[in-house]
């Protein structure tokens, strides 16, 4: 079932992680206590020009050496350290969370319009696809994913383990996992991240196979067997590489039905037909609510049959998207507006420039 939560401050005012933890925990009924995760934007102002790589290491010796070597091949490590953690009585630690602040060498991707991100993409794929005991769980600038799995990984345990209250961000996404496969794996809960984009999902797409085959034909390698991995790559492909506006990218992923398109005015019909023509293999089916973010925006959308809940709240400069209204109220009791947008009505909040 899973519970998801996202909050964005339009004026980049910082929120510490404690409220997000409370919002996610109140939806514990939606999880199975075998995985939870958080991602926050704006947490590393001191290293804002570096790509922050959060890595789960099976052991800090051998598997770390593989990551070190890969990073040194592609650029320079400005700083690295273990991610501070605080052991929780119920959470069994099976890996070491590590972070690198990394500057890719742009000259290694000649001809690319976004060489740094191409390098990050490649090295994340390379490390995660190999069986080397290291999984990169986030890789963007000024952003970081904190997640854990296994029994005892309730939202509050994971938050407390990572001392989430010590981080301040202007966009937060959080995910409370109801595990169906590999509950023990720490890399499996959402959020999933690739440089700019982070994704949390409630649901399960029935098109994983089709979407994966599509995205892999563009050089992405899916190694986590999770929906959100594929979704993150799809958004990266459509927005960064194909230059689609986020609105159109969402429409490509969850398009209107043909009978709706047939009723649209000519130009709109043509646009929507073109989107379905071009991106039929990227279309996601089955029940899902997705909240995604990059440094400039947070978006939420559901499958076109609206099989999963999505509640949107607004209060002053804050935009909230959650599986349940109570999550929003847990963080902001005075929330003014609560809406439940229809399928095909993406919620798009942008941070003021």
């Amino acid at each position, binding site marked *: 079932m899973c519970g998801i939560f996202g909050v964005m401050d339009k004026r980049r005012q910082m929120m510490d992680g404690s409220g997000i933890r409370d919002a996610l925990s109140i939806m514990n*009924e939606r999880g199975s206590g075998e995985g939870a995760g958080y991602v926050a934007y704006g947490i590393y102002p001191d290293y804002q020009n570096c790509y922050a790589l959060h890595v789960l290491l099976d052991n800090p010796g051998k598997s770390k050496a593989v990551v070190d070597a890969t990073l040194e091949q592609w650029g320079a490590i400005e700083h690295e350290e273990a991610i501070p953690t605080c052991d929780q009585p119920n959470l069994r630690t099976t890996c070491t969370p590590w972070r690198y602040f990394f500057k890719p060498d742009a000259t290694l991707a000649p001809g690319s319009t976004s060489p740094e991100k191409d390098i990050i993409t490649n090295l994340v794929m390379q490390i995660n696809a190999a069986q080397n005991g290291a999984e990169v769980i986030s890789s963007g600038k000024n952003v970081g994913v904190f997640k854990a799995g296994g029994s005892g990984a309730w939202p509050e345990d994971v938050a407390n383990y990572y001392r989430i209250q010590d981080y301040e961000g202007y966009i937060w996404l959080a995910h409370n996992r109801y595990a169906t496969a590999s509950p023990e794996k720490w890399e499996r809960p959402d959020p999933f991240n690739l440089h700019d984009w982070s994704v949390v999902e409630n649901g399960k797409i029935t098109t994983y196979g089709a979407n994966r085959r599509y995205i892999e034909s563009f050089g992405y390698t899916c190694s986590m067997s999770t929906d959100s991995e594929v979704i993150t790559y799809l958004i990266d492909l459509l927005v960064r590489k194909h230059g689609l506006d986020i609105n159109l990218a969402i429409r490509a992923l969850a398009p209107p039905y043909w009978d709706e398109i047939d009723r649209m005015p000519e130009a709109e019909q043509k646009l929507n037909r073109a989107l379905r023509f071009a991106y039929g293999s990227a279309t996601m089916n089955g029940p899902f609510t997705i909240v995604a973010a990059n440094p400039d925006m947070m978006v939420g959308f559901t499958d076109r049959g609206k099989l999963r*809940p999505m509640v949107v709240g607004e209060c002053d400069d804050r935009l909230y998207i959650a599986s349940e209204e109570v999550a929003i109220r847990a963080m902001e009791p005075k929330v003014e507006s609560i809406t439940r947008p*229809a399928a095909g009505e993406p919620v798009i909040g942008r941070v003021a420039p």
Partner: protein
Amino acid sequence: MAKKVTIDAKGVHYTPLNQQVRKAIADGAGEIVINNVLGQRFIGNGLRGDATIRVNGVAGGDLAMFMSGPTVIVHGNAEHAPGNTMDSGKVVIHGSAGDAVAHSMRGGKVFVRGDIGYRGGIHMKQYQAQRPILVVGGSAQTFLGEYMAGGLLIVLGLDGVMKAREIGSGIHGGEIVIRGDVDDACLASGAKKVPLTDEDRARIVPVLREFADDFGLDAEPLVKANYTRIVPASARPFAGKYTWE
């Protein structure tokens, strides 16, 4: 005078909360007020009798599921599926509610002052004297009255535009009454529009008055309004789809 019991739900999990409600009813309480409700599920779940439960806050999912008799009044919103498989009694929600409101409801009334989400009234059904009634003050979303097999579903659209499409998809019993006109394009296959006769109006007027009364609205404009009635084109939508081997 029936006993009144007040419960503070702040930080209480739904299981102990609902145990407190059950105990209060067993002890003869006629009115139970639950304050600081924040998403606790299953309130009123499977309760019998005629107590009134006032929920102050946001009621969690499956409010009044399997309920048979009591009245639940929510001063706030409700999450998914209030009135789910409800037998009898009444649910009054002063705010809005999520998806699948009154799912498979078989009797009693669910009144929602605000909006409801997708698939409102899905598979409501009636049998003999059991006839469920769902009235929505605001708007409903797509797949309204989906698979509906019986009962009465009224949407008043008091707060603006009706957003529902695919209305009455697979409907094979019962009736959907919507204030104002409904575009043919919003009707799903298996549903058809028919005029609201005087007899139909006489049947819905008491319901409208009760709804207006519960929410302090002026009943007269509702009683006099123009309505579209949507009924099944057939009681057997699957007929004609199958052949024997």
